[in-house]
């Protein structure tokens, strides 16, 4: 079985936010919910880097550990999904998640939380594949159509990669070698990367 992973290359990400937009559009995500976001570290300073962050589909997911109703499950592809019929919207997964992936639509007064929403690796949810219920709750199921997550598919610099962990690490390893181990050259050499 494949182990699905995201990888974002900090030396390539140009903070264009296309992945964020693509994700929102593909899954028709409601206002205020962002399954993916781009974070820029040291903005405007030397060593500025951006990374696109969403659910990283952890092998030992803290959200699943802390969930009071145990609504998370890991698919055979290593994708962490959750059941919105069981989720009670307590917000604990958001506190436990290192990446801030779980999102909550504001439902009523004082921003009381609705059912949690997060990146599904474009793999839908526990509902029947391609059913309208699945689309409404979890968004498009691209994986069952043999497609990879849209955010990675349309990344213009190929900074964001999605797919089998072995394939991704091979790609990244080649990149590092081609960069000539930029650590020793004090920075990034675009020609080599």
């Amino acid at each position, binding site marked *: 079985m494949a182990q699905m992973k995201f990888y974002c290359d900090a030396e390539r990400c140009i903070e264009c936010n296309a992945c*964020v937009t693509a994700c929102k559009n593909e899954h028709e995500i409601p206002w205020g919910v962002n399954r993916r976001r781009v974070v820029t570290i040291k*903005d405007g300073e030397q060593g500025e880097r951006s990374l696109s962050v969403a659910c990283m589909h952890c092998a030992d997911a803290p959200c699943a*550990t802390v969930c*009071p*109703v145990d609504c998370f499950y890991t698919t055979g592809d290593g994708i962490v999904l959750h059941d919105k019929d069981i989720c009670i919207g307590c917000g604990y997964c958001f506190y436990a*998640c290192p990446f801030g992936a779980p999102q909550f639509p504001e439902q009523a007064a004082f921003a009381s939380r609705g059912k949690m929403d997060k990146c599904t690796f474009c793999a839908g949810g526990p509902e029947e594949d391609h059913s309208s219920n699945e689309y409404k709750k979890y968004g498009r199921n691209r994986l069952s159509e043999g497609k990879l997550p849209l955010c990675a598919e349309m990344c213009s610099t190929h900074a964001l990669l999605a797919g089998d962990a072995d394939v991704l690490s091979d790609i990244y390893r080649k990149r590092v070698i081609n960069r000539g181990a930029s650590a020793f050259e004090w920075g990034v050499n675009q020609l080599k990367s």
Partner: protein
Amino acid sequence: MLSLVLTLAFGLQLSSADASNIPPQKPNVPDGVSALNPGSDLWREVRRRDGVGEFNEVNQGVLVKDLLSEIQRSRQVPQGISQVNQVDSGVMINAKGRRWAAFRMTTLASYSGIALAAIFVIIITFYVVRGKVPIEGGLSGNMVKRFTDYERITHWTLAVVFLLLAITGLILLLGRPLLIPLFGKEAFALLASASKEGHNLFGPLFLVSLIMMLISFARRNIYEKGDLTWLLKGGGLIGKGHASGGFFNMGEKTWYWMVILIGLVISISGLILVSPNFGQGRLIMELMHIVHAVSAMILIVVSVGHMYLGSIGSEGALEGMKTGYVDINWADAHHDRWGKHCHEEDLIVSAEEYARMQGQPADSAEPAMEQGK
């Protein structure tokens, strides 16, 4: 041969020396250019590590202290920025989440379960050993007014709201290990969802009834002379004979101030948790969750003792909160200074009069009440 020995000795000395004493080597690079790997530089920034020697500080020590220092640090040095305008969206990695999750699922859940089981075992053992504490000389039938209707409504509102909050809170904390194996995920999700909504709904009511409690009972719960003697005599729980007490004894006063102070802590932390729309980040939420849960567990455990002493633990005690009247013998036994005051002021309602007050319909009961006073 000699050089080999020297090298070995030198090597051993180096390895035994404290690693932090070795000054970090400064790379020979022009000023202003970082010779560090940009990847590790980024990682250091993301994991909030300032440099060599600080690695050990991550995820160690007391969790609350760890959270507080991280909150302070994130105020001073924000991690990053994001075009997505949300709480904590600029934070790439929240390093404390995992520690908090581990605390909630192992430390908090297990200690709460143990504390609950322990208090019930203690109470049952105490009941078996000591039994119901009787009133010396039995009930006289002559009553004295202890609580007004307003005070009783305040007490029972707080009690009911507290119990609902305690039960729903415990369902959310202990439901996954204890109830999911029994009911399955789907059924438990319904219960947990109702618990969450109920907890959020009754939470603000708890604060309101707590303030009512503060207003109506605070004056009589101020510590006074004689409270120390009560404490030294063990409140009459240990050994024979009753300890001297006023309208409220020292134990009741302490319970009252526990409810007020811990209750306020629970209410404030709960309000912060329930309304995530004031920009409070995950670190604050994690901290507030710990404060909320730990203080609530303390109050729940002590409340079991209060419920026991107010009902089956002590004869005639429940009457006061049920009807507002208590037997004068009970008052003399448990609150002798107040009982003496009742005798002196002639506040005692005779058994016949009390029966008439209870038996008559509400509209004609009013004059009898006046007479009783």
